[in-house]
């Protein structure tokens, strides 16, 4: 790692039989947190598993700390991995699980290290409970403790916030940030843009096994914002609300759907203010207000030129 590069992929591809996992990915990454962003089935987990040494590239190379993680036990010793799937050794308590994984990672005092890792993720109170009875949030935290128990330099977290309630999500985000502040290099995957935005500005957008974009999340945001932003309002009188907004200079277009109105705008902040004002003036009962563009689909639609 003389050049400070932690991960280096060169024309890396992976197939599962005839099914493509990732294709021709070239990427390098030096440190901090990077968010791996892509819809389900994009190839994020394949890339993470290759970095964790679980999968071999079918073609090309992928190195971590200058070595092939699949072949090098010494490299895998420096990697912490939390898989996407929920299944763990349910018959064990959280402490037994994390202690076992610490022991298998060659930690000199596995029990002590496990207690420390569990404390880091705020699970001390429940450490003697069997994992079988854990909620999704508790499982995610236990997985995080398992991934960091051996104090790895490089931590791979595959969809760590899936199924986690908002409070637990905030807590996880804080814990991941703390790990990064402690000098760990972290890769976090997600299919939700705002989860990644909450963690880091550095992202790698993966779609259909290929890297579509790489760099600062704000650059990606700017690309999205060049296109009309959509706001969907589910309410009792969508046509009346739409008619009131149609004359606004910030509204590019109004489309009606069943029980809802969708506004397209190039200035979302002002448009939100105008919608709120119109709703209050007319006493419209709003059931929900969402932005379809806040999901990753809009990014991919833009980056792929709407070809997907």
């Amino acid at each position, binding site marked *: 790692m003389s050049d400070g590069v932690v991960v280096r992929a060169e024309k890396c591809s992976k197939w599962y039989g005839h099914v493509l996992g990732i294709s021709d990915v070239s990427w390098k990454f030096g440190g901090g947190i990077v968010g791996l962003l892509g819809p389900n089935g994009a190839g994020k987990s394949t890339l993470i*598993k290759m970095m*964790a*040494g*679980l*999968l*071999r590239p079918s073609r090309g190379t992928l190195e971590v700390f200058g070595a092939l993680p699949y072949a090098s*036990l*010494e490299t*895998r*010793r420096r*990697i912490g*991995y939390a*898989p996407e*799937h929920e*299944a*763990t*050794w349910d*018959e*064990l308590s959280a402490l*037994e699980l994390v202690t*076992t*994984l610490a*022991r*298998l*990672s*060659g*930690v*000199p005092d596995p029990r002590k*290290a496990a207690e420390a890792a569990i404390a880091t993720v705020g699970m001390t109170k429940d450490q003697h409970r069997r994992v079988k009875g854990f909620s999704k949030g508790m499982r995610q935290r236990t997985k995080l403790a*398992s991934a960091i128990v*051996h*104090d790895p330099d490089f931590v791979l977290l595959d969809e760590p916030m899936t199924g986690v309630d908002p409070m637990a999500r905030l807590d996880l985000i804080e814990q991941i940030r703390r790990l990064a502040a402690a000098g760990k290099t972290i890769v976090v995957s997600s299919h939700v843009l705002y989860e990644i935005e909450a963690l880091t500005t550095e992202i790698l957008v993966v779609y259909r096994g290929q890297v579509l974009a790489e760099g600062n999340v704000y650059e990606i945001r700017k690309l999205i914002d060049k296109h009309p932003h959509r706001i969907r309002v589910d309410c009792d009188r969508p046509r009346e609300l739409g008619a009131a907004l149609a004359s606004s200079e910030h509204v590019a277009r109004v489309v009606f759907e069943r029980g809802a109105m969708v506004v397209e705008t190039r200035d979302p902040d002002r448009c939100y203010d105008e919608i709120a004002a119109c709703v209050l003036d007319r006493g419209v009962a709003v059931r929900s207000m969402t932005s379809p563009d806040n999901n990753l689909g809009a990014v991919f639609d833009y980056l792929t030129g709407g070809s997907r």
Partner: protein
Amino acid sequence: MATRVLGGGAATIAIARVSFTRAMRTRTLYGAAGVAALPIVMASIFTALKQHEWRSVVEMNVFTSAVLSALLVAGLIGEEFEDKTMTYLWSRPLPRWSVITGKLLALVPMAAAIAAAGVAIALNVALGDDKAPLGRVAIAIAAGTTARAAIAAAWATLVPKQSVALTIAYLFFFDFPLAVIPARLQAVSLAFHEAQIAGTVHDESVTSAIIGLCAISAVWLGVALWRVRRIE
């Protein structure tokens, strides 16, 4: 924190430790113990009918030991592949073969002890037959169960989802029929060698039977270790 890569032996022991703990907490273990108790029921029926057919009880035990190996070894290893919990082991800095050896180190003594205890109780307590070579039979059943565990481990790595069914099918439709066919192919049957060691038939020496069991186990264990190196 100064960590170190575990050697194969240390990794095997660490994996055996967790596999043993997990197995002790699963229902599979009680299911296997229930299956091992069937020869005891059979022996009790023989006693009630005043028949002292210790050979039949031993044969019954060979069948139940096949099911027991499939449930405990193929079931628990296959389940770990199926549930993807094996990724916790693959992602650690361990030689891959140690995952199989560790699991076998935990599960084989368990399966062998249950099977041997089953036959010992069936012959000695339920049947009350003091002429049956109890020690020899128990050793034969334990050895046979150990060898069947290698077959179960191989199936678990080859076809995790159907490993229990395939292990049982292999043993019942290939291994057991071969044992009773008077041909040289008997040499590849575990049940044939097991019967020699138990003393229920006398077609070859006990030493040859032990060598036969070891050779068959080694081949199947080799398949499991080869497969586990390649599995992704």
